[in-house]
């Protein structure tokens, strides 16, 4: 287990004044910081807020945005809502597998990309759609997806 100073976690807790009802916001920031909810951080938050760690795990596993395993630097969400499904969202999933070798629920070994299939992203007029980190991409096809991923791959090198 890596050693953590928890100064970042402390900062987040302080921002929300150690309030129990802010747990989800706190976890969202933890997820953003570490790209997952590390177990030791769960214990730390539990002690700080006086919530049993089991309860925190319960919350962390309930919501799709939290993950107990690290996600990629780029988290790809492919929409498989009905509108996107009809327009070929599964061909996007295939293109991603061809380009970076992961299926929904998986992460690349270098932790660069992770892929998840989700319900509607509220961009149905742009179907099929995907989100990478904070950005929405629409009217996609396999080739466009591969091109986007190639650009992201290069981004690290410079």
């Amino acid at each position, binding site marked *: 287990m890596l050693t953590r100073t928890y100064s970042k976690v402390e900062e987040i807790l302080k921002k929300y004044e150690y309030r129990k009802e802010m747990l*989800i916001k706190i976890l*969202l920031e933890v997820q953003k910081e570490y790209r997952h909810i590390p177990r030791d951080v769960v214990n730390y938050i539990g002690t700080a807020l006086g919530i049993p760690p089991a309860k925190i795990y319960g*919350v962390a596993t309930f*919501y*799709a945005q939290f993950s107990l395993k690290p996600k990629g630097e780029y988290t790809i969400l492919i929409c498989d*809502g009905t*509108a996107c499904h*009809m327009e070929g969202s599964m061909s996007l999933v295939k293109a991603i597998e061809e380009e970076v070798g992961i299926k929904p629920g998986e992460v690349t070994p270098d932790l660069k990309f992770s892929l998840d299939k989700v319900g509607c992203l509220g961009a*149905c007029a742009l179907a099929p759609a995907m989100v990478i980190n904070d950005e929405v991409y629409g009217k996609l096809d396999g080739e466009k997806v591969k091109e986007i991923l190639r650009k992201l791959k290069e981004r690290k090198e410079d």
Partner: protein
Amino acid sequence: SKSELKEAEKFSIKEVRIVTRNIGLIDPRNIDEYIARDGYFALSKALQMKPEEVINEVKKSGLRGRGGAGFPTGLKWEFTAKANAEQKYIVCNADEGEPGTFKDRLIMEGDPHTVIEAMIIAGYAVGATKGYIYIRGEYYNSVENLKKAIKDAYEYGFLGENILGSGFDFDLTVRLGAGAYVCGEETALLESIEGKSGRPRLKPPYPPQSGLFGKPTVINNVETLANVPQIILNGAEWFKNIGTPNSPGTKVFCLAGDINKRGMVELPMGVTVRQVLYGFGGGIKGDKGLKMIQTGGLAGTFIGPDKLDAPLDYDSMKNYGVSLGSGVILAIDDTHCAVDIALNVMEFFRHESCGKCTPCREGTRIACDILEKMTKFQATEEDLKYLEQIAYVTADASFCGLGQSINVPLLSLINNFKNEFEAHVKDKTCSAG
């Protein structure tokens, strides 16, 4: 096709913009542009009325909940106003998880102040001093625009203490969802704001009696709220002149799927599916034929072209078996397989079932298993019968609206496309390929 485009002209219909009136016309990040279009005038007017008068105006307008269930908004406010408590809350349901729906996102992104103004008015009317906007975490732009708008509203004195010198205080915060469809169900949403897993509560008591932190709470959808400032400004009579007697006002429809023009359009209640689809959507894309339309959202109905002339309002389910729901109009052409669509719908429900009650958790799983077998031509006629039973039983025995509504899409697909389902189990063929 060309003939359909011509057809489209015949059904062209005029937009009536109430909740979308500012979208595209103002810079959503500039409060002065909102004010220049009569923004916060309704608040100022409401603060000069008695709280009961504000509630009465909303009641008289006949405004009903645009989140899908159509409950009278004024009544909800009145219940909350009459509940006895020190602290009350206003909550805006901006979770918008219903597949095919994107109107709330566009309203919040394009005109955030309208929602904020409505919440302050609601707070004044029922005696609540604190509001929450619970919004999907994935709606980055909406979140940004709302936060900026709230900050500006504080600076201008529309939020905070002693609003416009009225002595009324109101605070407003944004809360992010973390990716759970069921959190759109109002009581699950309240659990989530309280920092817990979003599992639905037993109703009654309804939120106006016992809501957030057990206190009386008004919870309204984004689009519902966005109607309020215009109702206060123009009066209930003006509002009632739009739409139908039982469903006054407009509805924002979200068009997607195999049509020429996708997007959002605000039309008077009572427009027909055909008017929306052809008048605004421009008909089916390419030279394909229209196979079906999903109306109302995932928990809504799939209808065949025979129901194109059904008017859309809160009575259309009862009268025509067509859901209004959250305003989804998803056109599906004849290249798609009804069984594949049923599987896609049920997979969504299985994934989003919160697992609190067995009928929903198991029912959605079994339905998916059968449908998956069906798409692989491995299911039997018995399986198809069992699938229908599962739909009834799950709907009957489930705890909340999620499990209770899976029969609607599933049975409407099976009933409309019986031949296709039978072809999958009997002849092991699929006409859509």
